[in-house]
């Protein structure tokens, strides 16, 4: 379980997060919603150690994350697909995928893990040796998610996976996320602008506004709260 408690983060004078508290339970999808600049990306980056907190605590499975380096947080089984996907264009697709496996798997295991990923995303399997820069937006998203999965994570942090994708592809990716959470007990924290699709697959939802949690409740009750939706989610 991911446990964020009273977390505050600042960039110089900008207070990006203030007293954020919420939990993400094992095997569930937790949607993190909010307007542009609300602090969603900052939240994920703080969990994965890219950004230093000002105060508060983040722990995962009882292990305190604050103070650990990014590399060591990854080694606890936390995978972060950054905003804008973070596909490394100068590497081939296979190299991108392999990179996520290097820290834990031997040669044999690595092959079988990559085969699983290619099975999940057959589009990628056909062009293993092509540079990642030749991929379309949707394919890049698949590569980014596939790469995050290639380390067999227990917690997956996704930052706007639907960004720039056609509705059909978005739906596919959402379905995949839901399936992964249900079947492999993966914990997912899903940051989304696409509120409807996020709420449709999430069990829990956290709404952030100007760095503060407005509400943290079940996805169903957030979706049912008309006033909340009008005020913060724009539909």
């Amino acid at each position, binding site marked *: 379980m991911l446990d964020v408690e009273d977390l505050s*983060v*600042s*960039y*110089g*004078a*900008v207070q990006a997060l203030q007293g954020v508290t919420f939990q993400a339970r094992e095997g569930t999808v937790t949607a993190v919603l909010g307007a542009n600049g609300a602090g969603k990306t900052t939240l994920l980056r703080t969990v994965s150690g890219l*950004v*230093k*907190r*000002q*105060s508060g605590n983040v722990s995962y499975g009882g292990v305190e994350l604050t103070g650990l380096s990014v590399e060591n947080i990854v080694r606890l089984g936390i995978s972060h697909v950054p905003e804008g996907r973070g596909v490394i264009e100068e590497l081939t697709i296979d190299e991108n995928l392999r990179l996520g496996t290097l820290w834990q798997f031997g040669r044999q295991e690595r092959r079988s893990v990559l085969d699983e990923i290619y099975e999940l995303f057959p589009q990628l399997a056909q062009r293993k040796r092509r540079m990642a820069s030749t991929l379309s937006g949707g394919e890049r998203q698949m590569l980014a998610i596939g790469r995050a999965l290639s380390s067999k994570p227990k917690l997956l942090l996704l930052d706007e996976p639907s960004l720039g994708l056609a509705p059909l592809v978005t739906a596919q990716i959402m379905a995949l996320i839901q399936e992964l959470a249900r079947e492999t007990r993966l914990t997912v924290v899903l940051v989304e602008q696409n509120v409807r699709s996020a709420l449709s697959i999430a069990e829990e939802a956290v709404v952030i506004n100007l760095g503060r949690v407005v509400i943290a409740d079940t996805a169903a009750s957030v979706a049912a709260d008309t006033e909340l939706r009008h005020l913060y989610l724009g539909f």
Partner: protein
Amino acid sequence: MLRHLLLGAVAAFGFYILTSAISSFNDFRVGEIAVYAIALAGLSLLTGTNGQISLGQGAFMAVGAYTLGVLMTHTHLPLVVDVLAAIGLSGALGLVVGMPATRLKGPYLAGMTLILALGLPRIADKYSTFFGGDQGLTVNSPTPPGTIDPQRWLSWIEIVGAIVVLILLANLTRSRFGRSFRAVRDDEIAAGLSGIHVARTKVLAFTVAASCAGLAGAFLGLSVGVVNTGEFSLTLSIYLLAGMVLGGAGSLVGAWWGAIVLVFMPGWSTSIANSFNLGSAVGANLALVVFGLVLIVVIMAAPMGIQGGIGWLGRRALSLVGGGVPAPGAPTPRQEGNEPVGSIPSIPPPAAPAAPARNIREQS
């Protein structure tokens, strides 16, 4: 503007008293300090204010010195013309070399000026009949009016020159151009987006720095009486960088501190080596070691240099006098947090723990 002029007048009067009170050899020293202050002020503007680095400040001094030497040897123009030509030619060379380098982001200016520092002395050696070869070119110092000691007269000229240059640079950094210099240093892309012509701004800063070096070189030639390549090695360029960093990058007052250290350090290090019986090999190399350490230690531990340290001490003293109330602009304890993007760049880091960067950079 008026403030700078007043400051300049006070400084000139101070130097007048000083040179009247000391011996002729010390006049020479004071003059040398003024000369180095000119070169350092230019470099400080380039590096501290504009965020570029030049390893060729010594080479541009050589251009200035040789221009003066050649004109004096081969023509009979008034000294003022020779000196102006020295400034002009070194500035022009700066423009030519700087143009391709400063158009680009990255380390190109540093590399090209490094080549210049290594390569220019060889030109003088190759065309030795024109440039005087090993002996160098003889330079006559100006004849003083009346009974004034020639050495003292020359150091007055150099001091006045230095004060004029520093006043001009102080006004330049306060002007529209100064703001562009800083904007380009802090974030080239943002500066470009806000309508600043980035390449032109960088070339301008580099040309100004090279012109300052040209004047300093011409003055140095006058002081020493000869111009030869031995004086303008790569080492000089790097010493100048060390003096600038030590004085305080971007600070025109800091240029004076750096100049004082540059003038006295070689003597100090030789006497240190002698008094500790370190041997001649160490004696000859101690200055290199010291300046190398200066560059490393200042950047790592005290990037605001001497002048920044003085400002910090001054504010500390003020705040103590004021009953422990922090003076306006005094450092607030740094909270745990993240650097806002776009504010990281600057030689004296904006979040320097000891002193707010504004105070460091805007000193003049």
